[in-house]
């Protein structure tokens, strides 16, 4: 435990520009640095952008309900699917995973916040402002129209003179900063702040998956940032990184983007694996089967994720040798993924399975993800990909993984953890209806798209012609969207209804296994009255059922002593701060300065950011000590 949980004695209050706020009203949501509140903000923002992305996708599907529709012009259609992709990947699903991590990692490892609470707030606000910046492009001349992977040279000034592309580049650039600092924050937290006794191999599996994910973020985002920076330079200052007329190689963008882009898939899906790996054991009343294999396969998947990027580029003319190499590295990922699926199944075997809504989502995830996985293996084969890439088959594949996989898992996660976060239960009976609508809808949307692709329908086409046999598949797909939307609306209804009128949840409504269930729902602001100890992966379950705990008494006493030492001066609850919000807001404004080449404004924003960073550093410790009953 390298980082002390006890800050130096308070009192060193330097004169700050703004006093550290202490309010608790609506305004405090802007100044909060509590990981739980920020986790909630992440997930709610994720849902907001999920709604935006869903509206975009339903317009896309309406345009494709029949051949030769004229609902969206080609230009508007291009903007629509670009915004849909960016919104869903960067602003909806990935932040949901980070939001779960934010809320749950400290609770699951027995800590009282992340290592750097203000940095955490900064990360959230930067993500939100990056997303809002992107969203405003709709009202400022049009969203980007280059696809979510923005292939060069579509993005060059001559091919794309509008500002849409600038919004894409700058928004991702800003959002990436938020994601990076949060990743570092979470890694430091996991390494340093685990409860006494929680060795790495006693960490809950969700924490493990988040841990791997955050390393992926750190290694994957820099190549993207470089590529974004090159295009911003090309567009703003006339450099020629991607200008074919000056010898620029458009293929470079593809390499840099996918070195980021493939790990990004695992950045999205590993936290989902983690959530599933918590839900299935709880509702099977058994420990996760093969915990070490689950951990190692997660690490292996993450590691291999960096060695497969060119499978997105099989038809760019890399040659037979390179295609073979990247095909093999990709197919190998199927083995640890298969191991995970086996182990989830094996967890259920011999258990006592309860069909709660969360468990239904987990089961649906299992099947859906297996289907997305096998089409992934198919697409890892260059001869097949020569036909399937850039067709609706690929669209179907990655929606099975991202939508059917990650999103179903996060729905399961919401049903599982909502009682902990709010203290109220979501309706289980309505939940089952929602489950059938959402899961069934997703399959109805995406299963037909496999066939549309193989029948020759390229992706990103604004329309298709009659007579190609594509009508039935597209119509089914569009119907599916509305089935899923009905489910989503019911969910939104139940979400708000339950917040007010849900049944009280109690501390541990599911007979769950990890530490977050040992405290009240919702948890107190300082999370744990007493620092917990861990004697196994399912620390809380072991404390409920000591007959399964095989740790020897001496070790347990030792751990309890360590925990008491941590608590002996009371618990420091961090205060609030305006500076993360303000510096993030300055990045937001500065983004427009870069997009519109207003360098005066840009310099002002830069100075403001530097200034807020100083103010942030010197604003003093703030916060207060609490002494829950029974502690010193």
């Amino acid at each position, binding site marked *: 435990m390298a980082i002390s949980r006890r800050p130096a004695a308070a009192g060193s209050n330097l004169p700050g520009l703004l006093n550290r706020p202490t309010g608790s009203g609506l305004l405090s949501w802007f100044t909060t640095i509590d990981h739980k509140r920020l986790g909630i903000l992440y997930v709610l923002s994720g849902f907001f952008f999920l709604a935006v992305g869903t509206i975009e996708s339903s317009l896309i599907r309406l345009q494709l309900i029949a051949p030769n529709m004229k609902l969206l012009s080609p*230009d508007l259609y*291009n903007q629509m699917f670009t915004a849909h992709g960016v919104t869903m990947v960067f602003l909806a699903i990935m932040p949901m995973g980070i939001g779960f991590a934010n809320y749950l990692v400290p609770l699951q490892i027995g800590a009282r916040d992340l290592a750097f609470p203000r940095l955490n707030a900064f990360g959230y606000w930067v993500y939100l402002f990056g997303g809002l910046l992107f969203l405003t492009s709709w009202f400022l001349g049009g969203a980007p129209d280059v696809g979510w992977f923005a292939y060069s040279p579509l993005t060059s000034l001559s091919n794309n003179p509008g500002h849409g592309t600038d919004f894409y580049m700058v928004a991702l650039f800003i959002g990436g900063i938020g994601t990076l600092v949060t990743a570092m924050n979470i890694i430091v937290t996991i390494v340093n702040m685990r409860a006494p006794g929680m060795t790495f191999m006693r960490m809950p599996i969700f924490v493990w998956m988040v841990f791997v994910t955050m390393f992926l973020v750190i290694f994957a985002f820099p190549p993207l940032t470089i590529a974004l920076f090159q295009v911003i330079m090309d567009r703003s200052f006339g450099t020629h990184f991607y200008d074919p007329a000056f010898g620029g190689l*458009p293929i470079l963008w593809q390499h840099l983007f996918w070195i980021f882009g493939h790990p990004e898939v695992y950045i999205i899906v590993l936290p989902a694996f983690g959530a599933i790996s918590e839900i299935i054991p709880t509702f099977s009343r058994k420990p996760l089967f093969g915990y070490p294999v689950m951990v190692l396969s997660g690490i292996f998947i993450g590691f291999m994720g960096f060695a497969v990027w060119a499978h997105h580029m099989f038809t760019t003319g890399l040659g037979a040798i390179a295609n073979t190499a990247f095909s093999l590295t990709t197919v190998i990922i199927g083995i640890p993924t298969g191991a995970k699926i086996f182990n989830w199944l094996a967890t259920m075997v011999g258990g006592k399975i309860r069909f709660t809504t969360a468990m239904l989502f987990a089961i649906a995830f299992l099947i859906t993800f297996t289907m997305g996985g096998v089409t992934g293996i198919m697409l890892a084969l260059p001869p097949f990909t020569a*036909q399937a890439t850039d067709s609706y088959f690929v669209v179907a594949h990655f929606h099975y993984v991202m939508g059917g996989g990650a999103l179903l898992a996060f729905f399961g996660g919401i049903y599982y953890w909502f009682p902990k976060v709010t203290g109220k239960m979501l309706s289980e009976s309505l939940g089952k209806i929602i489950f059938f609508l959402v899961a069934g809808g997703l399959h109805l949307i995406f299963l037909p798209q496999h066939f549309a692709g193989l029948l020759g329908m390229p992706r990103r086409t604004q329309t298709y012609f009659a007579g190609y046999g594509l009508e039935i598949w597209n119509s089914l797909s569009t119907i599916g969207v509305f089935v899923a939307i009905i489910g989503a609306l019911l969910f939104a209804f139940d979400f708000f209804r339950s917040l007010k009128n849900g049944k009280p949840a109690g501390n541990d409504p599911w007979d769950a296994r990890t530490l977050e269930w040992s405290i009240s729902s919702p948890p107190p602001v300082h999370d744990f009255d007493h620092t917990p100890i861990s004697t196994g992966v399912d620390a809380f379950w072991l404390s409920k059922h000591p007959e399964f705990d095989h740790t020897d008494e001496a070790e347990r006493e030792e751990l309890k002593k360590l925990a008491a030492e941590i608590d002996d001066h009371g618990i420091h609850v961090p205060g609030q701060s305006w500076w993360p919000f303000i510096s993030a807001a300055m990045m937001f404004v500065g983004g427009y300065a870069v997009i519109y080449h207003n360098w005066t404004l840009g310099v002002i924003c830069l100075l403001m950011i530097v200034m807020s960073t100083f103010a942030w550093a010197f604003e003093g410790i703030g916060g207060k000590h609490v002494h829950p009953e029974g502690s010193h």
Partner: protein
Amino acid sequence: MPNRRWFRLIGLSILFILLLGGCSFDTIQSALDPQAPIPRAQHDLLIWVSWLSLIVILGVGGVLFVSLIRFRAKANDDRIPTQSHGNTALEIGLIALATVITILVVVPSVRTIFKTEGRIQAEDITADDIIVNVTGYQWWWAFDYPDLGITTANELHIPKGKRVILNLASADVLHSFWVPKLSGKRDLIPNQDNQLWFVTDENTPEGVYYGQCAELCLGAHAYMRFRVIVDSEADFATWIDKFQSIAPLQASTQASVQLVQVDPQIEQGKLLFKQKGCGACHAIKGYSGGAPDKPNLTNFGLRNSLAAGVLEMPADDLELKKEHLMRWLRDPQEVKPTNRMPTLWAQDDPKADEEIAAIAAYLLSLGNEAETQASVGGNYGN
């Protein structure tokens, strides 16, 4: 609860099987109906992997199904199940199983890669190969046969049974060449010499094959289509001859005096083609120089499609051909949104119909000179 869910799933699957029964997979641009050796190899691989996938999905689904039924919690049963943490032998076995499946997938795949994807080096090219320089433009295709001196657009003629080597280049953004029944995709990338080759064999039916750009190129991407026409040796020779027999530009101006061109509408169209400025962009061998980066219309009357494969131009339906061509000339944006062909006639231009009909008649006569002469006073006379 589990029972309802599974009944539902079974119901859905039956629905899908019925749907599949009612849907054909040999549609005009289908990768599931391969007609040449390379797509057949790709298709064989797909079928093999699909069977393996089905086994995996049914295996996982089956174990899941049985577990959900067998191990569901029963009411009033509070006993804690055995807390097993794993089983090393089982896990090693399952990982080994996954590895075996992986090998079963990879071996045929790698063999197919080397059969279908290697680059043909210059020294391996034979005189028998058909070489075509393909250039992608927003949103059409230029096909240039360097050995034959033929330049055309949006329709690639190839003789049956020969190997076709395409040198792929792009004039602007990325494009991707895809004719599912004859060849998989290969991208057209600025500043990169990409090659794509494919072969047809005795089992490849002669006729028209549908292709489409598969890489986002903005604007009219969905409308950037093309056709590949597989000809018999004799038809291909005739097609070549139709191009090679046209005298080049200078010679033709002198010869045009002697040309017997009796249809006045075609004559009028030919003049209008220059007057309205069409000739500034569109080359027609022997008549118009055009611009090299715009579609070449030489022997336009032989085409099977219009506006890069957007409208059909069936060889046996002159009326439809004329109707489609006039619709295109009248309002190109209506046929193919965002394309770069200008609209040459105002909505209320009283002469529009007559002029468009004349230009259409002229364009359709290109390559069909003999037939047009014969039909004067017939279809084309009015």
